[in-house]
Each structure stands twice: as structure tokens, then as C-alpha cells.
């Protein structure tokens, strides 16, 4: 046992003497979270719009006022004719134009129908979609409040965004980044540190020594378990205190699930280092084979439900997908183990498979 701890201590020396490793370990979580939290945001605030009001009456003035006071829009300018619409879009800062037909209020009262047109700049389709929907909602609300037209008994759904009432992007990114970073640190770092010993030739010496192979592997992995776990805590704390992402569920359960996920990623890292002998290949494999799928196929950014069936199947074999589901369930919905036991079992299954494969590979590797 004493031999073993000497080995673990040595491993910590390696980590703390390499500033690049340290940077990845502790700089990455903060930087990633800040980047994703602040830069990539789906929320719309102060989108610049223009209004072409051919009617200029009481009602159109009211509607415009409502739209601007919603906080989503900023009235950039009033247009005087149709010809200016195209021009404003081309200038690039105007994202949406609202056009009121002539005699708006009059038509509304006499015929019950009035023309209003909402034009979005769909060169950025997502934003355009969101903006137009917001605007439409505001207009509808206003018309309902006027109680005019031939829709006296209209059903008005009251929408509430459960678990994330303000539709904040960070709610999505905290679980996603946790999945991504823990995978990166655990799988990438361990596979690199093991292949490095192979490249240096020190692995041979270790194998000749009385240390058992399992001690060597566990000894190499323990420091990363600890560090990855610290990272998980950093992410949760930053989420809570910088971005106000709540932890509704049991924090202990959340940490235990994080621990399970770390062990899963580590065993994947071990498997990678058993397959290859070079740090380069280990790094490429970890980055390409793990990072991209983690970002694209885990439901982190793009919803799995919208993908083609084949990709959906591919998503099902991505461990991060399950972890993200678990984290969301615990953090945002406050669910207990009862609701995530299936995903938990799947993660345990992945871990077992990776470890079994590694053991098999490692034994073969000892040979020639």
C-alpha cells in the first residue's frame, strides 16, 4: 500500500509541475462557462426594429408602444415608405420591421380586419423566428385586450416555461459544459498521462516492478478523479453564484452522479491508452472521438429529437447524453434518484464495458 501511495504522489508531481495541465484543469472550466454563459446566448434583448406606420392612428401608436416597452425591442427608426424596408435590412442593424396598413384603426373598427405585417431578417433564421414570435404575441395580446374583431371567445393559452421561466441559455450550458469538461479532463488527461509513460519507457519499468498492473492504472487515475471532481464543484458553484442556475435537487446525489460520470470517462481514457502507445494519437482520439460527439450528439446544444433517426441512434451510445439528462433532472427539476435510475444504470453499464475492455487490452499489451 505504501508503494502505491508513493506512486500516487509522483503522479501529483507530474500534474503540478506542468503548467499546461494545470491551465487545462482549472482554467478551462471557468473560461468555458463564461464563454458559453455570456457569449452564446439565445436570449433576445434590445433587438433593433423599424416601424413603417402608414396609418399613424391611436391603435398603431399603442401597439408600437407595447412592443417597445416589452424590453425585447428597441425602436431604431420610423420609416416613411416601403422602399426603405429593404435598405434598413441591408444596413444590418435592423432585425425586424413592422408595417401597419393604411386606415388601421378605421378598418379594425369597421371591418374587424386590419393589415399588419411583421418582417424578420431571416439571414439569421433562429433570431428572426424568435423575434417574430415575440412580436406576434404582443400584438395578439393587445388585440385581445381591445376585445375587438369577430373573435370574442378566443382561447388564450397562458404559457409558462417550467423549470426555466426566463428561458435562460445558461440553464442549458451548465449541464452541457459539465458533461464536456469532465469528459475532456478525465478521458484526455488520463489517456495522455498513461501513453506518456509508454513513450518514456517508464511503463516497462513499472511493469517489471512489484507493482501490480491494476495498481499502476488506479494510481495514475486517482489524481484525475480528484481534480475532475473539484472541477465539477467549480462548475456547479459558478453556475449558482455567477449565473444564478439553481440546484433544486439533492446536491449529494448530483455529486455522486458526477463522480460516476468521471469514473466512466476515466475508464474510457484508460481504454484509449490501452489501444495506442502514442500521446499524439491518444490526444487526437480523445478530442475527435469524444469532444465533437459530446458537443453535437448529446443534446447539449442541438435537441436529439430533431435529428434524423440514424443520428438519434448514434446519440443513444453517447454517454454524455445520459449525464446531461441526469444533471438537468437533478439541478433544474429537483428530481431524485427515482427519476434518473435508468440513466444512472446506463452510465454504470458504460463504465463496466470500458473497464472490461481495458483489462482485456492491457493484458494483451503486456505480451509483445
Amino acid at each position, binding site marked *: 500500500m505504501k508503494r502505491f501511495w*508513493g506512486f500516487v504522489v*509522483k503522479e501529483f508531481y507530474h500534474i503540478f509541475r506542468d503548467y499546461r495541465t494545470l491551465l487545462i484543469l482549472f482554467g478551462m472550466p471557468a473560461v468555458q462557462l463564461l464563454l458559453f454563459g455570456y457569449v452564446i446566448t439565445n436570449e433576445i434583448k434590445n433587438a433593433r426594429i423599424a416601424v413603417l406606420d402608414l396609418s399613424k392612428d391611436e391603435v398603431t401608436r399603442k401597439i408600437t408602444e407595447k412592443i417597445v416597452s416589452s424590453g425585447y425591442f428597441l425602436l431604431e427608426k420610423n420609416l416613411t415608405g416601403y422602399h426603405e424596408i429593404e435598405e434598413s435590412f441591408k444596413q444590418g442593424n435592423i432585425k425586424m420591421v413592422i408595417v401597419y396598413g393604411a386606415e388601421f384603426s378605421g378598418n379594425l373598427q369597421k371591418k374587424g380586419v386590419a393589415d399588419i405585417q411583421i418582417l424578420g431578417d431571416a439571414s439569421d433564421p433562429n433570431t428572426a423566428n424568435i423575434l417574430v414570435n415575440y412580436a406576434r404575441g404582443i400584438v395578439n395580446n393587445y388585440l385581445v385586450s381591445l376585445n375587438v374583431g369577430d373573435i370574442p371567445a378566443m382561447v388564450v393559452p397562458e404559457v409558462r416555461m417550467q423549470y426555466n421561466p426566463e428561458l435562460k441559455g445558461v440553464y442549458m450550458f451548465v449541464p452541457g459544459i459539465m458533461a464536456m469538461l469532465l469528459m475532456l479532463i478525465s478521458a484526455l488527461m488520463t489517456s495522455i498521462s498513461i501513453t506518456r509513460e509508454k513513450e*518514456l519507457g517508464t511503463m516497462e519499468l513499472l*511493469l517489471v*516492478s*512489484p507493482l501490480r498492473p491494476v495498481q499502476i492504472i488506479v494510481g495514475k487515475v486517482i489524481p484525475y478523479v480528484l481534480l475532475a471532481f473539484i472541477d465539477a464543484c467549480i462548475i456547479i458553484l459558478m453556475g449558482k453564484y455567477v449565473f444564478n442556475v439553481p440546484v433544486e435537487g439533492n446536491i449529494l446525489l448530483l455529486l455522486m452522479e458526477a463522480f460516476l460520470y468521471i469514473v466512466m470517462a476515466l475508464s474510457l481514457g484508460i481504454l484509449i491508452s490501452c489501444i495506442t502507445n502514442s500521446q499524439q494519437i491518444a490526444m487526437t482520439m480523445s478530442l475527435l472521438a469524444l469532444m465533437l460527439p459530446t458537443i453535437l450528439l448529446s443534446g447539449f446544444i442541438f435537441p436529439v429529437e430533431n435529428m434524423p433517426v440514424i443520428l438519434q441512434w448514434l446519440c443513444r451510445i453517447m454517454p454524455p447524453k445520459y449525464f446531461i439528462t441526469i444533471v438537468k433532472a437533478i439541478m433544474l427539476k429537483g428530481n431524485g434518484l427515482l427519476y434518473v435510475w435508468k440513466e444512472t444504470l446506463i452510465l454504470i453499464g458504460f463504465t463496466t464495458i470500458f473497464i472490461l475492455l481495458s483489462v482485456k487490452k492491457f493484458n494483451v499489451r503486456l505480451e*509483445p
Partner: protein
Amino acid sequence: MAEEKENMIVVKELVKKFGNFVANDHLTFEVGKGEVFGFLGANGAGKTTAIRILCGLSYPTSGLVNVAGFDIYTERENIKRNIGYMSQRFSLYDDLTVYENIRFYAGIYGLSRNEIRERADILMQKLNLDEARNKLIRDIPLGWKQKLAFSVAIIHDPRIVFLDEPTGGVDPITRRNFWNLIFEASRNGITVFVTTHYMDEAEYCDRVSIMVDGRIVAMDKPAMLKEQYGVVNMNEVFLKLARVK
């Protein structure tokens, strides 16, 4: 000089096959206690395969192998405790200091803290490494690394030390100095099993074996081999044997 003593390595009819390829073809040899045994052969002759088997890194296909009095099939753990190993890459950790490397390797062989401190002090004095004690390995010259790698390989007083081309890439004077360390270890009763490319080093060995294509084609004291083949140095012995296929 070693014939009368107990044998540290006994190998009988050792065969190692990789598929159809026979890497070690019925090797039979013995190495006595304190002997410096040179294990020579061209690249690909099967030296590394044999040394890996002796170190317990790989199982033979068939044959009897006994190292330090223990059976390779059933007593691997005992063998590991009683051997040292140094590879051609002087495998030390670049980002650890001289002292940390010594402490680490002594530690994995289960030496106590006091033993480690004592032996590290003696070792560093002997190698004149005192002032380099806290230097990182990457900052010390190759020759020092080599000596240190060897000293670390025998820090736990093994019965046998396996040296796999321990002098690659260093200059002749450093090599000569290095052999003095080997002789000293041998005088202290450590059996030395060494592979090398340099035929001048073969002359330093008590006995050598020469492997060609997986078989041992000659094994004797260097002087006897030279006499047998009627040549003046080991290099020519080697060339004669290696050419005959």
C-alpha cells in the same frame, strides 16, 4: 569463474512463438551468481523477446525458465521483487528531480523511508550527484542520467539486473565509466544480464552468448570464442557467426 556457484538464471528449451514466427528457438543457458553475462545478437535476433520473458513481462510458449530461484510461471511476483531492469531509454521521469526519482523507484520496491534516505545519500555521493540532488532530470547530462538509471535499477539490491542496451547513444569514455559501475555491482554479488550492440563491451563480459535468428549459436567466455574462431576480437566473432545463416 562462475561455474561452481549457484545459478541465478536457468533456461531450458525456451520457445516463444508469435503465430508462425519463432522468436526464441529452444534457448538453453544458465547464468551464475555475480556473473556478467553478455546477451548478444543482431537486431531482430530475439534478444528483447527473451529478456521480456526473463523479466516476467511475457510468458514463453514452452520451456523451463527459472529466475533468481523462482519459476516464471508460478512465482512471478517473487521474481519481480528480486530483479532490477534498465532499458536503453534510461527511463527516469524528466519532470522529477534526481532525488525524487530515486525516492520513487526505491518506494515502489517497498524500501522504508529511512532506507531510501540512506541509500539515496550514498548513491549521490558515489556518483558525485550531490549538487544535482534537486535538479530536474531533464536538466542533467545524458551520462549522469545513464549512471543514475543504473543505480536506481539496483537500489533495492536485486539478485539480478537486466540491462537492455544500457549504453546506447553515449560516448566511449562515459561507456567505460559505466562499465565500472557494472563491475562493482557484480563484485557485490549482483548478477548482470546485459544486451549490447558494442562488441568492445562484449569483451568485458565474463561470458557471452550470441543469438542469430532466434537461436543461440555460440556461448562461452570471450577469450575462448576468439580462440575457437581464430580471430583477434569479438567483433569478428560476431560477424562470422551472424553471416552464417
